């Protein structure tokens, strides 16, 4: 669990508590981007891309939850797809069975998923990190089998809420204030923002510090008086909670769910995109969501088989682990800075810069080559 090659511990601990100018600027940029995403994007997008961006918003919550586990606590989970499926199932079942407000259903689905998710991973928690990765991979396989047999609720009765009807399947309901696709897109973005704030609040306070300690060295954290099992369980529960909320949101976005929408290879690509996007930062979660949900839609639009993307993710995950553990979120600004330095140097001292620049260019290209993925 000691991953010394990762970038330095979360910036939270080193930043002064008072808002300085830099973090104010950052806050303003994020706020403007979010406002643009909520208000300016929907009128500009076609129906296809509205759906796609809704998926991106939802998957950013999923990658947020997985990034929390991988980047902050050092728990590699391959079963996040299964957790998402549980959330989607519970959400769909509750939406059919009750007439509760949508928000309430989201929270309930999150809570149920958190309980199931932490119960299932409990056996592996006391063991070493590798075991958790393996048991969650098996969990993914198991849950997919259950989902294929049980099916997703489609308005039937009983526990499973499934009937064999192929026609006149009622759509999973949406909240009255977010009935249309653009409105549901806005709703998803707002829910995603709330989930990011929830996780951010955890990272800035005691749990975040304890997770960082556990990630550095579990025995040391234990020696420092941290209840490691409790905090690891907390991280798993929080991650399962946000993923469960994302699942319930997905139920409303897709309006009908099928088990074939969740192929098992996606449980691996989810981890791959989180590692590629950058597990150590919240921005990485957003990048990962774009990789997971936006790229496939784009490729489909261009008529390129999705398999190329799977190959790309495979290469990407190997490259990230071998050379750039921080992922795109960490590497891209560095490469940009390097490029900026390079250009400014060339600008100032043309003849001296060419020689130094030649080495720099090849170095930067080598590192950023796979990041374009």
């Amino acid at each position, binding site marked *: *669990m*000691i*991953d010394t*090659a990762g970038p330095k511990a979360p910036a939270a601990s080193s930043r002064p508590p008072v808002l300085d100018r830099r973090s104010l600027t950052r806050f303003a940029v994020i706020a403007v981007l979010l406002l643009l995403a909520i208000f300016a994007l929907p009128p500009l997008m076609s129906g296809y891309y509205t759906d796609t961006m809704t998926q991106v918003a939802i998957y950013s919550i999923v990658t947020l939850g997985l990034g929390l586990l991988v980047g902050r606590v050092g728990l*590699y989970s*391959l079963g996040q797809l299964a957790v998402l499926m549980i959330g989607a199932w519970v959400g769909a079942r509750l939406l059919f069975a009750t007439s509760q407000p949508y928000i309430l259903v989201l929270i309930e689905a999150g809570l149920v998923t958190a309980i199931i998710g932490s119960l*299932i991973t409990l*056996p*592996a928690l*006391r*063991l*070493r*990190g*590798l*075991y958790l*990765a*393996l*048991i969650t*991979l*098996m*969990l993914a*396989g*198991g849950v997919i*089998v*259950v989902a*294929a*047999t049980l099916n997703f609720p489609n308005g039937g009765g009983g526990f499973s809420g499934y009937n064999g009807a192929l026609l006149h399947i009622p759509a999973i309901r949406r909240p009255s204030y977010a009935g249309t696709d653009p409105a549901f897109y806005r709703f998803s973005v707002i829910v995603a923002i709330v989930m990011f704030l929830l996780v951010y609040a955890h990272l800035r306070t005691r749990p975040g510090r304890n997770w960082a300690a556990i990630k550095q*060295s*579990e*025995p040391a954290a*234990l020696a420092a008086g941290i209840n*490691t099992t409790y905090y690891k369980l907390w991280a798993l529960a929080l991650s399962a909670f946000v993923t469960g909320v994302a699942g319930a949101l997905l139920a409303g976005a897709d309006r009908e769910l099928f088990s074939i929408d969740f*192929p*098992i*290879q996606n449980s*691996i*690509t989810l*981890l*791959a995109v989180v*590692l590629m996007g950058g597990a150590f930062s919240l921005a990485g979660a957003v990048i990962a969501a774009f990789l997971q949900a936006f790229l496939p839609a784009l490729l489909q639009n261009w008529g390129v*088989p999705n*398999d*190329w*993307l*799977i*190959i790309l*993710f*495979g*290469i*990407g*995950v*190997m490259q990230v*682990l*071998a050379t750039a553990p921080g992922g795109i979120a960490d590497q891209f600004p560095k490469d940009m800075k390097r490029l900026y330095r390079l250009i400014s140097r060339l600008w100032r001292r043309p003849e001296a810069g060419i020689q130094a620049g030649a080495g720099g260019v090849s170095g930067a290209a080598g590192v950023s080559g796979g990041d374009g993925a």
Partner: protein
Amino acid sequence: MPSWAEFQPYIVTGLALGGLYALSGVGLVVLYRATGVLNLAFGAVGAMGAFIAYSLIQAGDPGWVAWITCIVFGGVVTLGYGMVFGPALAGRGPLVQSISTLGLALVLFGVIDLAWPTTGGQSPSISFPTDNGGFSVGQLQVNWTQVIALALGVAITVGTAAFLRFSKLGTAMRAMANDREITATLGVPIRRVEAAAWLGCGLLAGIAGIMLADLSALDDTTLTFTVVISSLAAALIGQLRSIPVTFAAAIVIGLVHDLITPITQISNYQDMTPFVLAAIALLVMSRGQVLSRSREEG
């Protein structure tokens, strides 16, 4: 509850499946002990080898050429991966190293889907000449492929255990399992020993791939994920260490998986067998464990 007679045929298929899981599990354990890497691309490598063999047979090549190609392909790809990424990730702990093999699995999975797209027509399959011959025990029909599967599982398990115990290379692997650095100081060429472990694991992946393509199905998802998950469960129960326990666990997983088939109430859930068994085993084993900074902490 179905009668005993209904269960009987599944004992045979279960044992055959268990033999192949044992073979795979032993391959995983040996590589893990020698290099600290759990090869999660094991199934994908075998799957791609099997698809290549299928294409060769379709092209009119004799069967044995195709089978050997599959096995060699497994060895070459796995060895190549180990040569490139083994040293690059050597200092990063078992967890990161194992996650990295998932990258290889994804690449191979994507390539298989591109090169052999699933069409509505006849699904690809591989059959051995040994499928038709066989013998019967009482009412039970046993074909030679099933016998070979179980025999291979037993032979590989016994052979590997003896190899690790008695041969010089095997001793070096065991030494590296304990401490890589000290082993290197003692003059063991660890890169070469690791390469041998990667090659062995890859060859076993090829064997498992071609056999399962015949006994189970030539399907990329099944071969890539079911095989890895089942043999991983066996290896986990063996604590990624014990070869006899891995063998026994693999046989039990194969048997339980197939014996559930006639019980209609739960037969749909039979693919959950490895997960359930491994979870139970982990729960039992994790009692009384002490947290320590051992090599495997990853």
